């Protein structure tokens, strides 16, 4: 059970993308690696699903993109946070923490019958 991969909850991928892009502009491949480096190994992320998410976020003006040259000297599309994206990150991060704390409180409260 501890080694079992976990599915990413809805909305989490967008939050993770917004968070790692606070480091600066990155292409999709670097975004996936940055998410994994930050401790997301237990989460099952089909790498390709990042791209439709990136395109939707760009369309909603959370991200902007431009073509550049990667570390391996290849043409790559780099994404960066827009001001709308920064505001969304703040809002989503706060909401995520509140939900997480609330769920944690329920889980941590002993059943009265056994208290």
């Amino acid at each position: 059970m501890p080694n079992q991969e976990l599915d990413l909850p809805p909305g989490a991928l967008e939050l993770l993308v917004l968070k790692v892009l606070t480091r600066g502009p990155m292409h999709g491949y670097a975004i996936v690696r940055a998410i994994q480096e930050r401790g997301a190994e237990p989460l099952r992320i089909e790498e390709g699903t990042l791209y439709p998410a990136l395109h939707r976020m760009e369309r909603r003006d959370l991200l902007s993109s431009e073509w550049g040259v990667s570390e391996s000297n290849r043409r790559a599309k780099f994404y960066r946070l827009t001001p709308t994206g920064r505001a969304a990150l703040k809002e989503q991060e706060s909401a995520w923490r509140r939900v997480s704390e609330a769920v944690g409180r329920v889980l941590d409260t002993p059943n009265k019958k056994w208290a």
Partner: protein
Amino acid sequence: MSALLERLGLFARAPDTRSLAEIAGDIDAELAFHVEETARELVAGGLVPEEAHAEALRRFGDYGRIRRECARTQMGERIMMQRVQVVLTALLIVAVGVLLWSNHEARASMSAERAASMAMIARIEEQLASRSPQPELLDGLPAVRGPAQVPDDSGEYLDPSGKSVDRTAAVTSWISTFRQQSDNWRHGLKQADRLAALPGSQGVEILSRIYPTLSTAHREQIFKPFVFDGGHRDAVEVLALGLLDGTNSVRERAALYLETYAWKNLMYGGVADTWLAEWRDRPVAEVLRANATAWAREFGGVAAMYEQIPAGHPTRLLEIIDHVRPEVFATAGVDLAAILRENGIDRLTSEQLRLLSPSDRERVEIVQSWCRAK
């Protein structure tokens, strides 16, 4: 128009100004970069290139579906713009039509009226050519899109030697087999033949995963076995890979083969992408029936409007005949002859066809004699 839509809140930002072909090329380049970077990392970690590429594709997920989702997100906006423009133009045409009708009796010259009608029909035809058939207008066909193909990650697949293996092993073997002679188009065609002969949807599933690793010489050949000799049930899905290809020569071939299914020239700007968005997830029989019916109604409608079909008027419609493969309809169980007969194509007289160019007349006569023989 864009500024107005933006102001109305239809778009969060200004619409994309790239052509649909450029959008498709950018999506290909972006996704290919990810797969190749992963493969490069795996090679550095000790894997051989073929295994690294297969593993990179496995980690990436369903390449075809992801590519399609990206295309829908990016092209949806452009397609919506085109539809808004079609609707506005149609309204304008209706307004002109009402005006012409109201002035009908006052018109002194019949030839002037005919010229105006001709101009109007030409504009309608141009609008029809620039959009896909509307399925909800066709009798007996569902208006909703069919379910998208769900990738099957389980089960066994045949590798090039005919051995049953898991999908990752099959993908690795097929990549390796194609790569043995990347520059040899005959080798690509031979392997494509074998892929198309795999049972069920195995061929298209494997192809959609290995497609980004194929050379241009192979991608140019890959579609033939899925279209020739009666066609394959997944032909539209395979041709869709080509229609979104970043290389012109590959895209042109895919568009040419798709004319059997679309009954229109898909090389006009934007038509291919719009058509694909509408039809690629539908069963092949439905695609063939709906698109052939739309063509027959359009040509039959033009024909019914005149005592003699005007010279040059339906040439673009009739050119399709050169590229359509009727045997594909037979394989799919669709009665093409009945569709053409229901729209009066077989009843056009030589007097009605008199003004057509010899080549256009010949095209109609070929279709008529084929209909009568069925």
